[in-house]
């Protein structure tokens, strides 16, 4: 059985990298501000979050929100609206800091009681020509050590997530290569 796919999707298989799916599910487990960043309410809430302390402001700057303090103040006072590019930066900085601040608690929850069971749904083969279809079922695996995954997710590090995913699926046995790309990965915390 092969390992890592060279040309995933060549025969029309559909799926995303396992690491991406894990990040998606981790994001679902975190409570973010629900109003979108382009709504006045959502924007104000994010700006308040990013400016609560000097440490936060520095973290925001490190996360790419490199505007003058006076500009942030004008946004907060609603005297000026952020440009589209800056809205994206605000959202990115907010998500990064929020992830970082919940990461340790989330990891603790995921590692409590001997780990968390994850359900892995392999890539969608249904549009692949019959002769080239490989059958792979839904698999479950218990993950005890969430450190590499949660850390990579908190850093926003896609490569790190993907390599952590490959390490993790080796436990599935010889057919692990079929789970490099998935349609969904599910778990609760």
């Amino acid at each position: 059985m092969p390992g890592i796919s060279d040309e995933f999707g060549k025969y029309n298989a559909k799926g995303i990298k396992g690491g991406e799916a894990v990040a998606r599910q981790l994001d679902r487990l975190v409570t973010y501000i629900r109003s979108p960043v382009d709504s006045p309410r959502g924007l104000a809430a994010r700006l308040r979050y990013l400016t609560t302390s000097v440490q936060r402001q520095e973290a925001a700057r490190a996360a790419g929100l490199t505007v003058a303090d006076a500009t942030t103040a004008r946004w907060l006072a609603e005297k000026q609206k952020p440009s589209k590019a800056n809205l994206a930066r605000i959202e990115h900085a907010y998500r990064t800091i929020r992830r970082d601040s919940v990461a340790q608690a989330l990891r603790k929850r995921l590692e409590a009681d001997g780990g968390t069971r994850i359900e892995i749904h392999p890539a969608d083969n249904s549009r692949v020509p019959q002769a080239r279809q490989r059958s792979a079922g839904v698999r479950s695996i218990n993950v005890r050590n969430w450190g590499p995954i949660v850390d990579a997710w908190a850093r926003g590090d896609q490569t790190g997530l993907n390599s952590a995913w490959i390490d993790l699926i080796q436990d599935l046995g010889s057919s692990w290569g079929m789970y490099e790309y998935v349609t969904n990965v599910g778990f609760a915390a």
Partner: protein
Amino acid sequence: MTEQMITDAVHEELERAGGDLEAAADRLLKRAVPDAMALLEATRKGARYDIVYYPDMPEILVSPGPKKPDQIWEARPRWTRPTPAAEPVTALDVNGAYLAAFKTHLPLGRLQHSTGDQFDRKRAGVHLITPPDWEWGHILPNPIGDRDTPGPVWVAEPTLRLIIRVMEQGLCKAPVIHESWTSGSTEGLLEKMRVALRTARQTAILEDDTVTLEYVKTLYSKFVSTLGESNFNRAIYRQDWMHCIRAQAFANLYLRAMKAFQGGCGVIRVTGTDELHVTGDWQRVFTEGRDLTEMKVK
């Protein structure tokens, strides 16, 4: 065995509360969601199909955002007709409507897309259909529910099956299916869980045990309402099941209205999940009682 889990939980909380019924009921309410999930797992031990908790969901079943309605029409009935003068109306109530609806065709795995006007009884899911016209609005409600906008609509499996059933009785034309997201299905997936809850419910009614009765009610109603993308239950994401169970509850109510009508009663009002108002001798059609198959007077 599984009923034991329910009684054990009640005993545990009663003991902890030291006989304070209200405090025990409160605690039971709080642990209902994880308890329901544990019950589900316990009832699936040694069963034929594994439960798939996190399948990839098609766009149509993903919640479009906070405070926006879901895209699946569940065909909740809301229908009243003017009462004929000088006829007494009886308001009837279906017992445990959502619990009874656990017996429904549920898709097992990942939903797969198909187009075209075909209906496969061995599969279940959601369908985009154009419902047929309804000419009997003056005596019986439309099986598609109280819908204002005409044209195609996404419905869950039970609604489609209900319309087909009504069609087979010659009351309307066939619905047109445009698109479907379906998977192989079974009607028995939640059967053991349903029987466990139903037995616990019956025992509680017989023994006049309000704490257990309330607990059982919370178990199944919260289970249904948190089956989808709920933040109160992240152990399962099955929006398809949630819509199917709800739609089945509404379809069951519709079928009871139909049964009353065919048994010679006049149907006056069909609303919500459990409300049925009729004229005439309803006791010839239904048995009075508190079991799932019986009806009680409101």
